[in-house]
């Protein structure tokens, strides 16, 4: 079905509208084996919607989605809230993946280094642990394509690097393709082959180095890192300054 060997997913001119509101316009891209494609964009840009269309959870209003039917997909949704009323430990949560054995589950837990959590209720996991549990669920069944919706949300910087490292390692070890959503270009740069800036349509796309130079990217993301850099650099003197002013008043 795929026109190119190793192509796992291809979208052609995909549009999506809700109640006549166009939320995605003319999106085309593809993901190949061993390749990491990262979607970035502001809130409401349609990143999650695009992911759900890629997975077949949502139908595109127009355009074509080619997904190799023979491949296994590992999906990491953005948010998984499991109510306390369901008594479910981490091991059984992972075991819910069809065609999985408990041996597979142990192996996946080992990959994300969470073996000690296996018997804990899944609701007791912290934000960072939950993301690793979801990653473990995604890699069960040896996927050809990993689709990750904000894999590092709610995790501190150290944890983020660890998760991204883990994803890169899994990709290198298994040769799978990765499609993921991220807010931060800098952390994913090292392991990403292609970045797609999305804001209802594709604003720009290319290698991370290329994207970093692109004015469209800066217009879209509003130079968040510069803002933060200025803040941290000037923090102490700025504080003193304000304090001083206050006294003058």
């Amino acid at each position, binding site marked *: 079905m795929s026109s190119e060997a190793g192509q796992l997913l291809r979208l052609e001119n995909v549009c999506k509208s809700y109640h006549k509101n166009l939320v995605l316009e003319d999106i085309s891209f593809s993901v190949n084996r061993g390749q990491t494609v990262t979607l970035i964009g502001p809130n409401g840009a349609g990143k999650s919607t695009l992911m*759900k269309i890629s*997975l*077949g*959870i949502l139908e595109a209003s127009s355009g074509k989605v080619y997904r190799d039917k023979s491949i296994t*997909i590992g*999906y990491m*949704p953005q948010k*998984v809230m*499991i*109510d306390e*009323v*369901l*008594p*479910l*430990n981490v091991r*059984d*949560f992972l075991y*819910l*993946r*069809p065609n999985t054995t408990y041996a597979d589950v142990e192996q996946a837990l080992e990959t994300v280094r969470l073996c000690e959590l296996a018997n804990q209720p899944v609701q007791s996991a912290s934000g960072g642990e939950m993301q690793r549990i979801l990653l473990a*669920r995604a890699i069960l*069944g040896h996927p050809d394509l990993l*689709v990750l919706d904000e894999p590092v949300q709610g995790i501190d910087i150290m944890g983020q690097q660890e998760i991204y490292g883990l994803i890169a390692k899994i990709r290198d070890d298994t040769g799978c393709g990765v499609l993921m959503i991220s807010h931060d270009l800098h952390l994913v740069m090292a392991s990403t082959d292609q970045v797609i800036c999305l804001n209802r349509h594709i604003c720009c796309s290319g290698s991370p180095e290329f994207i970093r130079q692109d004015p469209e990217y800066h217009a879209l993301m509003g130079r968040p890192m510069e803002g933060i850099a200025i803040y941290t650099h000037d923090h102490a003197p700025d504080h003193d300054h304000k304090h001083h002013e206050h006294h003058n008043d």
Partner: protein
Amino acid sequence: MIDEFIVNALIAGVMVAAVAGPLGCFMVWRKMAYFGDTVSHSALMGVALGIAFDSENPLIMIATCSAVAMMLLFLQRDRRFSSDTLLGILAHSALSIGMIVISMMDHFRTDMMYYLIGDILAISERNIYTIAGVASLSALCLYFIWRDLLSLTVHEDLAHTEGVKVNRVKIIYMLLIAFLVAVALKVIGVLLITALMIIPAAAARTISRTPLQMIMFSSLGGIISVLSGVWASSHWDVPTGPAIVLSATVLFLCGRFLVLKKV
């Protein structure tokens, strides 16, 4: 020596409770208690239809309950109304239709109360065969969809991506509830069927560590409630359906008390 009608009541009640256990757990997990109420309220419409056609065929009830369940699925496509609003419309409309049709049958002299709270002591041998058939069919279905249903209960999109036929499994589950409600009407009545699904499941939660345990304990709790409810009903001469529900409530409270004491 126990009277035959008591034995029939116990057999029917135990079978219904055994299936209500797992169905009720999923109802609690999926937050669908109101759905159970809607289907059971619509059962009264089935009763009315049965009277109109002068037939006791359980298929009429099953068809009515299933139709209402499927109607809900259809209405849910309009995202402007949330499920509980749609359920409220369906439940009360069906209940009203049932009540009006029944009240129009002048020659029909049975007390409406029997449909509202059940008449387990009037269970016939034929009723028992029907209940046994539906109960074993439901148990078999649940055995096959159990893992898929649990998976989509935890996260639908994840289940879908992993190859679970989400819509098919959901429809099967809704139909299982419709079937159970249809045959349980005589045992515990329109108003109380949901209680037999929800309360034992809630009671089981406090002592369960896995989903499977919760289902087992829930069935067991339901069976205990039926046995003690029927006993209480014959001992103190109180209506059986409410006695069964209150037995389940006592079990729930005992469970809570034990857990509190442990802490």
